[in-house]
């Protein structure tokens, strides 16, 4: 039996892939959180705007945006949990990846305001930048912190302003 979440996600995915073709990957039909990947990251902003404004979709709510590190692939990525509250009730996750060093992902902070701080957090913890973000600074760590703490190979710095950091 196909879960209702997957069924709804299929509808969403078909509307998006009809418009954007091979810029989106096939739908991953896991029952927990169906997702697709944006295989051409430069189109992520257009896809986001389409998902928000298309009357068949109306993804009006970004529940979360998280950063992910994929060291084996040499990539960093984000996972966006989007919801369409109201008439449709759709829920889907979108993944976007970029290079591990100097990677850039288009910002969707002007599409969903939630993304503003979430993208800053992803930058703070993983180090990818978001092009078009109006305020791309660290959000939690101090401004002059070295490195990106949630990367798999992160080593904490020895000193911060003359204070020893490791135990």
């Amino acid at each position, binding site marked *: 039996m196909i879960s209702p979440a997957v069924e709804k996600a299929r509808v969403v995915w078909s509307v998006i892939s009809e418009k954007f073709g091979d810029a989106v990957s096939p739908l991953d039909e896991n029952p927990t959180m169906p997702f697709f990947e944006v295989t051409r990251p430069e189109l992520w902003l257009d896809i986001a705007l389409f998902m928000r404004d298309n009357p068949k979709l109306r993804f009006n709510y970004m529940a979360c945006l998280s950063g992910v590190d994929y060291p084996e692939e040499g990539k960093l990525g984000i996972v966006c949990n989007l919801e369409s509250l109201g008439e449709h009730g759709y829920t889907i996750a979108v993944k976007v990846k970029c290079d591990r060093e100097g990677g850039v992902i288009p910002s969707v902070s002007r599409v969903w305001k939630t993304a503003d701080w979430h993208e800053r957090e992803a930058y703070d913890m993983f180090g990818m930048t978001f092009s078009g973000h109006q305020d791309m600074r660290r959000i939690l760590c*101090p401004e002059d912190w070295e490195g990106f703490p949630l990367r798999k190979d992160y080593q*904490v710095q020895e000193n911060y302003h003359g*204070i*020893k950091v490791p*135990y």
Partner: protein
Amino acid sequence: MGLLDARITKHNVLVTSVDNVMNWARLSSLWPMGFGLACCAIEMMATNASNYDLERFGIFPRSSPRQSDLMIVAGTVTMKMAERVVRLYEQMPEPRYVLSMGSCSNCGGPYWQHGYHVLKGVDRVIPVDVYVPGCPPRPEALIGGLMKVQELIRMEQIGLSRAEALKKLEEKSVDPGRLIEEARKGAKAS
């Protein structure tokens, strides 16, 4: 023996040393700075509130470091906060005391290994007089720590450094295990 136990003559003359008077005044009105950093602060506030009522010790929080004698570092000190804690400490007038409350401010606590942003013990940036273990410590434990600060003040003399007072406190400290054992024996007998 406390100052009030000393004999008062009929002319209201009280004979004691200057050290005693000063120590008594200081330890009877320890004013901590009203700031908390994490969950320990909740426990500290509970200690201040009516159930445990710190005001019976003359302890009540002040809103300015310039009016405070005691800094209770209640909670996780992040690297970002560490510099602010130092600044607050420097704004306090001497003599000032620091009580480190809970595992986080004692040594980093649960963040000791993977907490990249946590200062592994507030004693890396300011001198600490009394450490209260616990995660978070119960109000009784905090009161125990505050009484330890009072004991420390009792050891002070004019011209005696803090380090010497701490050493004196260590030498004069009583093993509580023996007292508890005695109390138990007494309870059984009665």
